[in-house]
């Protein structure tokens, strides 16, 4: 952080008094106003801010919904309907929350692919990446429990199927899986007891995510942001202060994303869900075609691709767990895929694989679909376990620019004298 001298100067007497006791203003100013951000960040870097917005939005709308929701098997379904029909603006709160979950995952996936493309997991950002994967896991748990709350048919059977994943442990130690599943259910089957505990945890986990996000930001601001070149900030010329440069770019990306969000909220609120979830939960009848929400489809395809209960479950969990090891599986000396002519093809093949698994996960478990799900599942793991280590060793990267500034302004342009230091830039009006 040698480049990072704070220009914070409290202006009021109260500000000075506070600064000597709890320098929170200095912290915010240093980390979110003066903080040096690479001058070449593109719009893929706006998704961190978008994700923060969605976490806050989900908590706020969730707190509102909790004021009207009844977490009991008898009343849950009707209370959600009452929210949609009777509660003032309840339709809006419910749509914001339900669509918000989808948008949260969409933004998270873009954020993760961005990290994979630009090598944002590579040293010294391994811990930053691992915390990110933990956030992703917690998000998945939160979304799953949230999906159970409307207590419709899809809710009920999603809970049944996902909790039953643990019953596969019975084949390792007899009775272990059953004991765990009954512990999760609080009974011999999914019931209102299960719903009640899921509701409690669904309220708790977002705050765990918020804590992890704090750690994620801490780790990020300690080592600084990666950039499209994968180069570090070497001179002050490589960086601009976060405010107003990165913040205004973030705002543009955020508003663009919010337009998409609003379009779904106001015009297609149920498009991303399933009609079956508007049938009240019935423990006697499973819907004919049961699929998870779109953001879980690739994992669902992996689960069904393996013709063994235990190994299907192991494969599904491994598809996330493998992300933890990416910093060490990638042997390339270059971060950004922009300079990796061979790996670049594999990266897009991997993106295609994930989309294909998503499509296959939405299809019924029939021959052709399962066949292709197996092919793509194989590549999913091969990408991490074979491609990442081997391509990194064999590939000759393209020449890197000398610095971020050179990447932006070209080699001929001598680095201009400190183009945008925080203090000077803030005063400039054009």
């Amino acid at each position, binding site marked *: 952080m040698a480049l990072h001298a704070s220009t914070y100067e409290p202006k009021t007497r109260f500000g000075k008094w506070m600064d000597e006791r709890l320098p929170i203003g200095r912290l915010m100013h240093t980390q979110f106003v003066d903080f040096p951000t690479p001058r070449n960040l593109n719009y893929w870097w706006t998704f961190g801010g978008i994700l923060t917005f969605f976490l806050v939005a989900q908590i*706020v709308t969730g707190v*509102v919904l909790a*004021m*009207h929701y009844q977490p009991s098997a008898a009343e849950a379904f009707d209370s959600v309907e009452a929210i949609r029909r*009777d*509660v*003032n*603006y*309840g339709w*809006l*709160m419910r749509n914001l929350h339900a669509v918000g979950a989808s948008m949260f995952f969409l933004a998270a996936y873009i954020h993760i692919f961005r990290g994979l493309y630009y090598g944002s997991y590579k040293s010294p950002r391994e811990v930053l990446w691992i915390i990110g994967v933990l956030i992703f896991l917690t998000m998945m748990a939160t979304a799953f429990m949230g999906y159970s709350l409307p207590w419709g048919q899809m809710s009920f059977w999603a809970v049944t199927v996902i909790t039953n994943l643990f019953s596969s442990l019975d084949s390792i130690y007899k009775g272990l899986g059953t004991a765990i599943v009954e512990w999760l259910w609080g009974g011999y089957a999914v019931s209102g007891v299960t719903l009640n505990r899921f509701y409690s945890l669904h309220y708790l986990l977002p705050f765990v995510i918020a804590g992890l996000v704090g750690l994620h930001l801490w780790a990020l601001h300690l080592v600084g942001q990666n950039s499209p070149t994968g180069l570090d900030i070497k001179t002050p010329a490589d960086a601009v202060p976060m405010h107003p440069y990165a913040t205004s770019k973030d705002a543009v990306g955020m508003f663009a994303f919010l337009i998409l969000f609003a379009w779904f909220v106001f015009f297609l609120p149920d498009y991303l869900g399933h009609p079956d979830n508007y049938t009240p939960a019935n423990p006697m009848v499973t819907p004919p075609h049961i699929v998870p929400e779109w953001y879980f489809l690739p994992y669902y395809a992996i689960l069904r691709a393996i013709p063994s209960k235990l190994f299907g479950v192991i494969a599904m969990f491994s598809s996330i767990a493998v992300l933890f090891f990416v910093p060490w599986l990638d042997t390339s000396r270059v971060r950004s895929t922009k300079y990796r002519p061979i790996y670049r093809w594999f990266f897009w093949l991997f993106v295609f694989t994930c989309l294909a698994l998503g499509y296959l996960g939405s299809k019924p478990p029939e021959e052709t679909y399962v066949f292709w799900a197996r092919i793509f599942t194989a590549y999913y793991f091969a990408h991490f376990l074979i491609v990442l280590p081997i391509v990194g060793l064999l590939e000759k990267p393209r020449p890197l620019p000398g610095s971020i500034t050179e990447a932006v302004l070209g080699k001929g342009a001598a680095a*201009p*004298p*400190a*183009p*945008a*230091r925080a203090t*000077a*830039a803030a*005063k*400039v*009006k*054009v």
Partner: protein
Amino acid sequence: MRSAALFLDAEAPVAIDAEEPTRRDFIILAANAFVAVGGAVALWPFIDQMNPDAGALALASIEVDISPVKVGQAITVLWRGKPVFIRHRTPEEIAAAKAVDVAELRDDSARNDALPETTPATDENRTKKGHEEWIVMVGICTHLGCIPKGQALGDKRGDYGGWLCPCHGSHYDTAGRIRKGPAPRNLEVPVYEFLTDTKLKIG
């Protein structure tokens, strides 16, 4: 593009502040105003969701059969989630209520929802003409919302023979007017009517 030139010149003192507002000033102001107004508008649904919904607001009225209530007895019925006192007053209680000089009362408003607020708090204005033996009031103390005692026969009725709030000792007279203690207002008389001599419609 002149903006680029100015950015490169950033270290030099750029004394534009005193000049005409620039295009950028306008854009910043417009963007901030847009966000401020948008934020304020977006806030309203989050506040309004806590208000009673249309179902709760719908004017709910109830009908009460008062034929079993003998002179000196009282019943309490639930209307819009609130207790409503209905007392069949004795001639002595009516006489006591009528004898009070309105000027001496702490609250001289009849607090009758069917009448303007300035109506004096006479016994006539708190009951229905021809049905003076009946008093109908929302049984919620105007101090801090407890339910006063005085409906059951064994209850303490306070110094004025009407109702006594057990929470902080507010005394109401036989017309439900505050006479002593911390409560500021007389008990509220809801809108009601006699459908027949023995049937009451509240709300």
